[in-house]
């Protein structure tokens, strides 16, 4: 069962909702609807399922409707049409049609929220700010302060409990915001650009902390961001929004590899693929490798070859006729200790960053094994291809032949080392 299930959701702000919806159905754009004197459309026909324990990132430029969609989930924004179901124990509650009491129950027990500008109460101490949501739950003073203290320890701010919010730095204030949301013990967390107002270093630090906390707490998180790098880093799934619609929804790698249109492509072009792409999507498949007698040629220049048995398993490797060592690398193993001049075998789920590190360390292409058989290799031209952003260009560019590219690559690496 999904934790949040959104079907054909429309959010329209203002008092001419019906008229605006009618215009929407006629296929008018947002701007045309405003020009006709009707309301601002925040979200149009959004459908998305967020599974339990997932981090779903809503991504888009400002005004794309991502915050409007997020705010509809806890009823801060009106649901004009469609269905928005949020899990509450065994049942699903329709936020759009439930009564005040149910909505309040969902807000105090099921869904908590973290805000872009922190939204801490300036007259309360850090501790009481964290306890604010618990106070809304109706918890007694002693109890809620004890619990708030626990959550403050979790975000490493227990020594600051008696300070006021304005005495803390931005990063610390947002940690207080996180602690306040975690204190509710709700399963669903809405985060509205929580790290956008922070310095890049602090931002990345908090992203890491969030990922770490998420591994322990396993919440369902709906996260709004305008930064695709952030989305790729923390998202299990990413939904990209443009002018009130969700235009693409999928796993980070799918989005980087197959942007649905120019808009998404532009986003992707400006991201760093190192942490997103996996070996599998970069590799040259075994079947496309050149064969020399019964051996597969990895690099024609120095005549590096591997031979495989009938099951596709790599049995030996050689360069210019002399045998070289093979090494099976496991995820998590230190790359710095790998012996030089060895052919390293890794899983196809290896990240691009690690693959490059191995290539840099050993000076050799990386072999990718799945179920003990060789499915492809990663050599320099695969990496350059991805780094230059050529991996998603919709028109299939002809890949230069292995030999010439390897040649260029060799020169490049030699000069840079």
């Amino acid at each position, binding site marked *: 069962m999904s934790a949040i299930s959104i079907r054909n959701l429309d959010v329209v702000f203002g008092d001419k909702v019906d008229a605006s919806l009618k215009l929407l159905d006629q296929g008018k754009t947002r701007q045309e609807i405003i020009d006709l004197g009707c309301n601002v459309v925040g979200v149009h026909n959004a459908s998305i399922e967020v599974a339990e324990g997932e981090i779903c990132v809503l991504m888009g430029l400002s005004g794309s409707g991502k915050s409007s969609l997020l705010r509809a989930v806890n009823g801060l924004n009106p649901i004009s049409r469609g269905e928005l179901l949020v899990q509450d124990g065994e049942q699903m509650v329709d936020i759009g049609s439930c009564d005040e009491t149910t909505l309040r129950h969902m807000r105090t*027990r099921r869904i908590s929220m973290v*805000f872009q500008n922190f939204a801490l*109460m300036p007259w309360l101490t850090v501790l009481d700010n964290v306890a604010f949501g618990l106070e*809304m739950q109706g918890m007694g003073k002693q109890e809620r302060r004890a619990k708030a203290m626990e959550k403050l320890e979790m975000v490493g701010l227990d020594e600051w409990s008696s300070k006021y919010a304005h005495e803390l730095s931005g990063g610390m204030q947002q940690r207080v915001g996180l602690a*306040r949301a975690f204190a509710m013990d709700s399963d669903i967390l809405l985060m509205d650009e929580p790290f956008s107002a922070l310095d890049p270093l602090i931002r990345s630090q908090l992203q890491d902390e969030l990922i770490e906390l998420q591994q322990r707490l396993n919440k369902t998180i709906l996260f709004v961001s305008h930064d695709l790098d952030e989305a790729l880093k923390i998202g299990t799934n990413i939904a990209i929004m443009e002018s009130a619609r969700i235009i693409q929804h999928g796993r980070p790698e799918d989005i980087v590899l197959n942007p649905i249109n120019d808009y998404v492509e532009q986003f992707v072009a400006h991201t760093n693929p190192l942490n997103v792409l996996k070996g599998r999507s970069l590799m040259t498949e075994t079947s496309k490798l050149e064969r020399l007698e019964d051996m597969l040629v990895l690099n024609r220049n120095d005549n590096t070859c591997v031979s495989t048995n009938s099951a596709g398993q790599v049995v030996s490797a050689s360069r210019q006729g002399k045998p070289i060592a093979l090494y099976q690398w496991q995820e998590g193993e230190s790359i710095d200790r790998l012996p030089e001049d060895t052919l390293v075998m890794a899983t196809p789920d290896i990240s691009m960053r690690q693959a490059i590190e191995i290539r840099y360390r050993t000076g050799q292409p990386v072999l990718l094994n799945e179920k003990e058989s060789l499915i492809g290799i990663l050599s320099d031209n695969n990496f350059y291809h991805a780094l230059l952003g050529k991996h998603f260009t919709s028109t299939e560019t002809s890949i230069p032949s292995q030999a010439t590219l390897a040649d260029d690559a060799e020169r490049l690496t030699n000069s840079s080392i």
Partner: protein
Amino acid sequence: MNWITEHKIPLGSWMEAFVDWLTFNAAGFFDAISISLEWVILSVVEIFQWFPPYVPMIMTAALAWALHRSIPLVIFVVVALLLILNLGYWQEMLETFVLVLTATTLSVIMGIPIGILAAHNPRLYTFLRPILDMMQTIPTFVYLIPTLVLFGLGVVPGLISTIIFAIAAPIRLTYLGISKVPESLIEAGKAFGATPSKLLFKVELPAAMPSIMAGITQCIMLSLSMVVIAALVGADGLGKPVIRALNTVNISQGFEAGLAIVLVAIILDRIFKNPGSKEES
């Protein structure tokens, strides 16, 4: 043109008829208000008078210390009160103080809820705004006349006029404070499941508190500025010696009574000025 001057619109007569109608039909109501308010004010004055002067003096000094932790302020308060005692205006000072206190209390009790309602209901505020403007701009003497007719001579018409003049401050500043509460705080309150009343008491009012406190301080000062005018309709207090001095062209009495009013004003202002404002700036 002659036609216009010859056919004067009897606005004044209409107002007079209205006030006459009120006195005739609602005399009991106004008398009840007048009698009860007068009783309250006189009893409070009596309570204060029952203490020897050093008791209120120490209490004021203690309040100043509790709110501001400032030794110079405490010294000033004590010296100023001793000077008033020495000039022989102790009783008048007490009467003035009670008048200001009562007017402020009533203004705040009525003004803050009105301000909150106005902030939640913009239409109410558009209706209220010209009335508030009018209450503050009409010369005080003008509404002194009907209040005098309705409530009779004494401290009550003075009190009512003071409230009419001073209540705009708490209304306006409460309205301002509540409507200026950052949207994000309101959203945070709602997102964590605040009921409307919790939202008001736990988010809006605390957030608006600096502004509301400023409204209360302003209300005190505006009430004090009405002391002399209230004396014209028979309210006791420091205004009376001022009026008397004016009528007899008595420079020394006028100076001393005026000085006493200034001292009371400074004491009230310094004590009730928002103690938190220093931290925030």
